[in-house]
Structure formats: C-alpha cells, structure tokens
C-alpha cells in the first residue's frame, strides 16, 4: 500500500468512528467535539485530493466557527443526558423512516455513481485554479453570494448598534 492509501484508510476509519460517536455519545458536548474530529478527518481527505484550500476553509468555517456556536448553545443550556426529554413513539417512527430513506438515497447515489475524480483535474482545489474558475465561469453566482455575506455582516453591525434613545432610556431607568 502506498502512503496515500494508508492515509485514506486511517482518515476514513477516523471519520466513520467519530461520526458514530457523535450519535452514540450521551453527553451533547462530547457529540459536538466528535463532530469536530469528523471535520478534521474530512479536511484530511481534501488534502489527499490535493484540495488544500478547501481543506483549510472547511476547518476554519466548520470546525473553527460553526462548531464553536454549537458549543456555546449546548454549554449555556447545560444539557445533560438525564435531562433529555423522552420522545414520543410517533417521533421515533418518523425518525427511523426519514433516516432510512436518506440511507437508501445515499446507497442509490453511490451505486450509480460513475467514479468522478474531480481533484485530479489539474489541482482544481488549489487556490489559484479555484480562483480562476470562480472568477471566470461562475462570476455571477459568486458575486451574488459575496453580496449576501456582506449584507449579513452589515446586518450584524446594524443590529449591534443601539439606537440613541434606547441607550438614554436605559440610563434613565437605572
């Protein structure tokens, strides 16, 4: 086995085991931490596919930002295994059906998948090629989504800005 293959098997095992632990952990904080391990393993797969940029962005965005927010919520709500509300029977059946259909869909998708190896097309995951592709072939969707992000950022600043009269009434109340 070549080093790449060994790494592939190690990363895949890590990803699957960690993903299972996400589900089976009793403690929600442990679940989130195992989910972070899953993201790391997936980032490793991106590196193996020569997509370093995607790997690092996956780490920054998912492991570094979104999971921190998950942790915030779970830690502040102080959820524990013994406090978990018991779900009704219908909820459980609905969960099994939707999960089963998703599995079926994934298996079908895998079965009819003609092996596309996108990563090897002249290193599309490297930042130069990715940038060229984004700015040549996908300019409009890229620009629209960037405007969306910018508006979200401006929105955060606007929401954070207190209006003057509210500040004054706060002081008056104290």
């Amino acid at each position: 086995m070549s080093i790449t293959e060994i790494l592939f098997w190690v990363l895949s095992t890590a990803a699957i085991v960690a993903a299972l632990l996400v589900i089976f952990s009793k403690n929600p904080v442990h679940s989130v931490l195992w989910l972070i391990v899953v993201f790391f393993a997936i980032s490793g797969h991106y590196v193996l596919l020569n997509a370093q940029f995607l790997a690092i962005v996956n780490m920054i965005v998912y492991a570094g930002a979104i999971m921190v927010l998950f942790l915030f919520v779970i830690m502040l709500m102080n959820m524990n295994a013994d406090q978990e509300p018991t779900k009704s029977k219908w909820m459980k059946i609905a969960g099994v059906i939707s999960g089963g259909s998703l599995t079926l869909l994934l298996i079908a998708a895998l079965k009819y998948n003609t092996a596309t190896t996108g990563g090897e097309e002249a290193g599309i995951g490297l930042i130069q090629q990715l940038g060229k592709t984004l700015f040549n072939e996908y300019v409009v969707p890229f620009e629209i989504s960037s405007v969306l992000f910018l508006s979200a950022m401006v929105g955060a600043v606007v929401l954070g800005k207190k209006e003057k009269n509210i500040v004054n009434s706060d002081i008056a109340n104290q």
Partner: protein
Amino acid sequence: MIDLWFGLEKLLLIGAIISFSLVVAMYTTFAERKIAGFMQDRRGPNRAGPFGILQPLADGLKLFFKEEIIPLTSNKSLFVIGPALAMLTAMLTSAVIPWGDHIEIAGRTISLQVADVNIGILYVFGVVSLGVYGIMIGGWSSNNKFSLLAAVRGASQIISYELAMGLSLISLLLMTGSLSLKTIVEQQMQGGWGGFLGWNILYQPIGFLIFLICVFAECNRTPFDLPEAENELNFGYHQEYSSMKLGLYLFSEYVNMFISSAVVSTLFFGGYDIPFVDEIALTATMGANMVALFGFLAFFAKIAFFLFLFIWVRWTIPRFRYDQLMDLGWKKLIPLALANLLITAIVILALNK
C-alpha cells in the same frame, strides 16, 4: 534514502523550533515581570540566580511540584484535554513560519521552514480559530460558573476579532498575490534599501494597525484580557486548574505571543530580511549559512520588539469593558478594514491600468 534524510531534517527542525519557542516563551515571562518591575519603579524578581535569571526555572519547578487537583464534579477527560489543546494550538502555527532562508550542510540545502504550504496564512487562521477550543473546553469542563463565563467571553472575543483580522489581511494579500509566507517574505526582500522599502508596513499601515489590535485580542492580552478579568471573574477560565495544567494554560499565552509576534514580523516587517543589507551580495561573500544566521537574528530582533510591545501595553493601558471590546471589534475595526480593503483594491487597479 533521500526521504529518510528529508524526514530527519524536518524532525530536527521541528524539535529545534519547538524547544526554541518554549525557551523564548519561558524568558518572556521573566521579561514581563522585570519590565513590570521597571515600570512600577521596583526591582522585579532578582533572587534566583544573578539578576533573577533562573526565575522561570523556579516558577516551572513550583508548578510541577504542586498538587494536582481534578475537581470531583468536573468532566474529567475534557478537563485534561483542555490545557493540552491550548498548548497544541499555540505551537501548531510555527510550522508555516519561515525562520530563515536556507542553510547548506554537507552539500544539502535545508530550508528553515517546516512546511512551505501555498495556503500558509489560511493555515495560521485555521489554527487560530481552533485556539478557541482550549479555552472553551477548559472553562466548561471545570463545572464552575465563573470559568464558563470566562470561556464564553474568551471564545466570543476570539471569533469577533478573527473577522477584522481576516479583512485586514485580505488587503495585504491583494498586494502580495500569494498566501505562502515564504513568498511574502521574498517579495518584501526585493524592495529598495536592502529590502527596507519593500516592507509591507510602509504600504499597509492601517492594515498593520488593525492586525496588531486583533492579535492582542486573539492572545487575550491586556487591554483585551477580559477572559481573565480577575476583579469580575475571580481568575478566568483556568480557575479550577492547578499544578502544571494551570502552567500549560498560562504558558500557552506566552507561546501565542511569541508566535503572533513572528507572524506580524513576517507579514509586515520583512520576516528574516536584514534591513539596509543586500542579502544576495552578502551570500556571495559570507556564504549562505552566515546570512541565514544573521537573517534569523534580524527576525528575532523584530519578534523581541513585538514581545516588548505586548508587555509594554499590558503595564500601561487598563482593561476594556466588555461592551467596549465588542464595540471596537464590530463597529470600528471591521468598517475600517473594509474601507482599507476598498482603497487598496482601487489603488492596485489604478496602478495596473
């Protein structure tokens, strides 16, 4: 057998860099106490060894020999992982920093950088964003309200300032056109006056200022040391920790300071570039090894200056209030960084036409 030598070189380099960072961090704690003493008109530590030079060793020994207490109600596994993660993320960044040009030993050219990845800066960002977990896990697993509050403070502070940090760097990246730290240093070395006119600080002063402020916030240093605000939170997210676990938390702050100083020097101050000296001409007369040594010394001088700045600021500027911190990060730095980005883009576009 080429691969074996290559691996050995890298292992040696990693070992050297890590031990060097640890020793520098150790003596930064000493420098901090000495400079604090100087600024407050007292002597500072002067008992252990001549001028107190062995003080960091004594501190370390004290921490090692203290009783290690794991609180009964804490989450034990996470309680142990917390400080380990804090230290790990502090050290990880050093992998992509070019510590010098290259040295030649027995006909082999050895680059003084562990990994010259083409996404160097993004790697730094990735590691910085993971630095949150050391604080959050430690704070939460202690099962203490004050620790949790401090952890939430620290994490939200780091996330908020990452945004402004990234935006200030994008304007720098527009100029360099590369994410590799080595390439950025080499571009700066090509400026006039032996590289001095190429330093990015001359072209991106506002970007540098924003970046520096964000670095202070990311390292949880005064004036942004709210996670450790002892008059509000007793001690901070490491309140329940004792012995070397506490030591690792406190120490990781100094390692973070060292590595951040190295990143700032690399990005804005020419890295291992010796100002007013033409390195290529010098290599012809002195050989690559000596140039690498002097380059490293120049780099270290820059790092030492920033370490001093960290300490200087700590003992002169009082702590921000939490709403002031968020105010500065979200309402002042981000708009400023966006404006800087826009101006940089316009200037680059105008110059290219």
